[in-house]
């Protein structure tokens, strides 16, 4: 059943070089690791660039200090995020004319007790407004 719904990030990310990596609020790390299933909704709008890519990665930790990415189990961030807009030719980049909506649904192997999200635009020339919601569910009583 549904256990919680959090707005884990709601801010403008400005363009800068090197590209900025933004993180979900640290005070939510413990809450995000509490239940087994996570559904993530990402909204990106108010872009200042014509077209760009965007990634959101999920990472987890048992000590709230050293983080392993859930996609590869490594300290090294995967090239492609759990939510991904691709700027490559023929792919699906972010739209500047509408709000971009992405989702990531997690119900996999058990997580550690701290979870956080990282997000970044693909280029150093893009800024925009990012919102990330996380819904938590559980199959326990």
């Amino acid at each position, binding site marked *: 059943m549904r256990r919680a719904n959090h707005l884990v990030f709601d801010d403008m990310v400005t363009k800068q070089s090197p590209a900025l990596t933004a993180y979900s609020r640290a005070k939510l790390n413990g809450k995000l690791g509490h239940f087994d299933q996570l559904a993530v909704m990402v909204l990106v709008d108010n872009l200042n660039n014509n077209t760009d890519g965007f990634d959101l990665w999920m990472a987890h930790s*048992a000590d709230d200090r050293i983080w*392993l990415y859930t996609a590869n*189990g490594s*300290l090294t961030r995967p090239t492609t995020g759990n939510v991904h807009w691709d700027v490559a030719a023929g792919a699906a980049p972010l739209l500047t004319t509408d709000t971009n909506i992405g989702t990531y649904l997690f119900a996999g192997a*058990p997580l*550690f007790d701290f979870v956080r999200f990282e997000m970044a635009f693909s280029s150093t020339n893009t800024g925009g407004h990012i919102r990330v919601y996380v819904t938590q569910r*559980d199959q*326990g009583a």
Partner: protein
Amino acid sequence: MLRRKLLVLDEFGPAGIISTSHARFNHSLGAFDQLALMAVIEAQTGNGGFDLWVSHSADNRLWIYQKSGTTTPSAAGDISLSLPTSPSLAAGSYRNDGVMPLLAFVRIEVKLTSPATGRIKVYAVQRDQGG
């Protein structure tokens, strides 16, 4: 949902020596269906490797390695890391989703391959879908 977190091993690991989680954790580690282990190696000197094996038992006396299904460990552990020349920080994870049940008792073994030495921490996070 999240049930418990345990720091099951926190010690300096000499090269080539197998360290086992304390026996007082054996019962606790087998209590819930899902198990996630995070191994962190810090203050490392010398390159080499790190392996962590999960074994389980129904009598807390004779142990079967989960990966190999026998009393002999597999060459590479459930977590197997290549450690570069120091200084470095290394971490790896093992995540058991509980689809294949564990025996009642669970323990962890770790080893640093010579000449690597370092401080090893292993956290165990337990989850369960039961009531």
